[in-house]
């Protein structure tokens, strides 16, 4: 009995670390692949954060928007659109979607409780999903953008060109968003709205237009995420489920923080990979599904507002 316990403790607390140290190259490959997956999570989480910051809506439909954007792009390309035309048309469709959502949904739900808005976005999830699949069908569609996906070696590390491309475009997207938020008129207005709705309205910022803009931007971020995920695993229904993967990223990083979404995504990506490879076999594998949540939960117990979230101050 004692032997068994020692053996178990060894398996849980010692053996995985020994393995990490004795095969450093494999370990760094695990970390790198975790980081790259993390970038993809961050992309999805970013869409949530943008909308939550600007309108206080926890937009569950972000996952469906990722699917819808990717479906539209692929569908248009299948109908013979060249890639640039398909991209532009998809962006126009997403802006139209943002307009419709604002005009026919959000406008009527102003000042409702958060949970009502949250539910409405879940309803919207069904609506967008059903709409996208009604129009474009539900078959798995390959998305080929001509990005090479060969693997190559750098100093003994095996890297994939496509993953690097994804990480690179993620970084560019974040940089563009940062510039947009900090140096443009609209960006300033967006930040003002995020700070305080009433004060923003008082200085003459049109809240409704801001919402359309922020939903469009979130749609655009969703499109980028959709292209990345779609090119990796085909455009299909399961794409909308990555929203569930982005949620722990969100609570880890904080709902209101763009850097939080990125750092959170990277932490979750790496943590998940390491846990799956080193501890997964102990419990029968497939722990990726819930490990991210438990990791995020552990962080939350120490910082209830997430890593970078605004401090929650409560008054009676």
């Amino acid at each position: 009995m004692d032997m068994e316990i020692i053996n178990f403790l060894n398996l849980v607390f010692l053996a995985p670390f020994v393995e990490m140290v004795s095969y450093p190259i494999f370990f760094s490959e695990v970390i790198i692949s975790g980081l790259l997956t993390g970038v993809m999570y961050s992309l999805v989480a970013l869409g949530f954060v943008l909308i939550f910051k600007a309108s206080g809506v926890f937009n569950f439909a972000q996952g469906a928007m990722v699917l819808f954007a990717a479906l539209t792009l692929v569908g248009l390309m299948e109908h013979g659109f060249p890639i640039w035309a398909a991209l532009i048309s998809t962006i126009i469709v997403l802006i139209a979607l943002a307009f419709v959502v604002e005009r026919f949904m959000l406008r009527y739900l102003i000042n409702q409780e958060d949970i009502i808005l949250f539910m409405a976005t879940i309803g919207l999830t069904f609506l967008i999903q059903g709409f996208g699949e009604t129009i474009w069908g539900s078959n798995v569609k390959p998305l080929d953008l001509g990005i090479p996906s060969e693997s190559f070696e750098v100093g003994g590390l095996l890297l994939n060109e496509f993953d690097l491309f994804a990480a690179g475009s993620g970084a560019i997207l974040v940089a563009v968003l940062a510039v947009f938020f900090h140096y443009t008129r609209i960006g300033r207005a967006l930040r003002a709205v995020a700070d305080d709705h009433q004060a923003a309205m008082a200085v003459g910022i049109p809240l409704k237009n801001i919402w359309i803009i922020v939903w469009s931007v979130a749609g655009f971020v969703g499109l980028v995420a959709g292209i990345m995920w779609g090119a990796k695993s085909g455009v299909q229904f399961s794409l909308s489920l990555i929203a569930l993967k982005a949620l722990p990223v969100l609570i880890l990083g904080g709902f209101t923080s763009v850097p939080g979404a990125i750092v959170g995504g990277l932490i979750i990506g790496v943590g998940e990979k390491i846990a799956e490879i080193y501890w997964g076999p102990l419990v029968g594998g497939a722990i990726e599904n819930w490990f991210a949540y438990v990791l995020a939960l552990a962080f939350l117990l120490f910082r209830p507002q997430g890593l970078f979230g605004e401090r929650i101050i409560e008054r009676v």
Partner: protein
Amino acid sequence: MFYRETGQFKSSYKADQAIFPLSQDRWFILFLIIIAFLVIPLTASEYLLQAVMIPLLIFSLASIGLNLLVGYAGQLSLGTGGFMAVGAYMTYKLTTAFPEINIIIVFILAGLISACVGLLFGIPSLRIKGFYLAVATLASQFFLVWMFNKVAWFYNYNSSGTITAPPRELFGITVTGPTATAETRYIVVLAIVCVFALIAKNLVRGRLGRSWMAVRDMDIAAEIIGIRPFQTKLIAFSISSFYCGLAGALMVFLWLGSAETEAFSINESFYVLFMIIIGGLGSILGSFLGATFIVCVPILLTNAPQLFGLSMPIDLQKHIEIMLFGFLIVFFLIVEPHGLARLWQIAKEKLRLWPFPY
């Protein structure tokens, strides 16, 4: 004209605090119960019982459970599916290990185990609030479902990984398993749901329910007036999980007959959450109305094209169904964010003044 309190005098506090103070309400409920217990089992077809009535009642029970937590105690939870799975798998384990125990007692025991699990997953609620808590409860959903999938002990090491309801008797009549008729199963579910709905109604009217509502409305203020938020929240979590676990047990044993972990996926949690939002947060009646809506609408949508003589490919129809379902939810939230229970209340107010609203 007919529906008003004029002339109904109360001479005791007991009468004043009755669940249905108006005699019209009491008669109406009595009438409903008689219909539910006598008329429906005698007249309804097997399809109606199996596809509409039994799921409706079971989901009502689950939504009462979630409503206690979300609507009354204000703790947003997305872990319903996981707790339902606990109830179902525990019932299976208990009844296969101890076949001689009365199945109703097994249901209750499974509910209690599920309450303990709920207690465990409710602990973070002391520090985490709002959407952070909602996402945190997803941890329980994914972890529990994963556990029931991976640990073969829970499904008695059978090769298919499904749990199947064995035949069990109650008063000499088979109530579970493949040989049980839809009528018996319906009556058993109905009886259980009635009893537990009554208990829930009395819980929320009493001291516990009031402390839940105080915590919901502002937990710091509640703490200042002497309510212990930690205990109150944990009790809410465990009672809610008890109801959800019981509903999960009934779902497998009295409705589906057999199930895999797929049946308790995240979608189940969302459906139950829809039910309480559409029905009305903080209302036991709303739980029933919401469950009716969410159970019946997909059935109507599935059958609607045939009624109009339209035929279309099945997958297209499925997508349109999902789309309409989403549309109806958004529509209802816009029209009446406080749910069907609120509409019912408004109708009653109008009825009191009808036909002379001056």
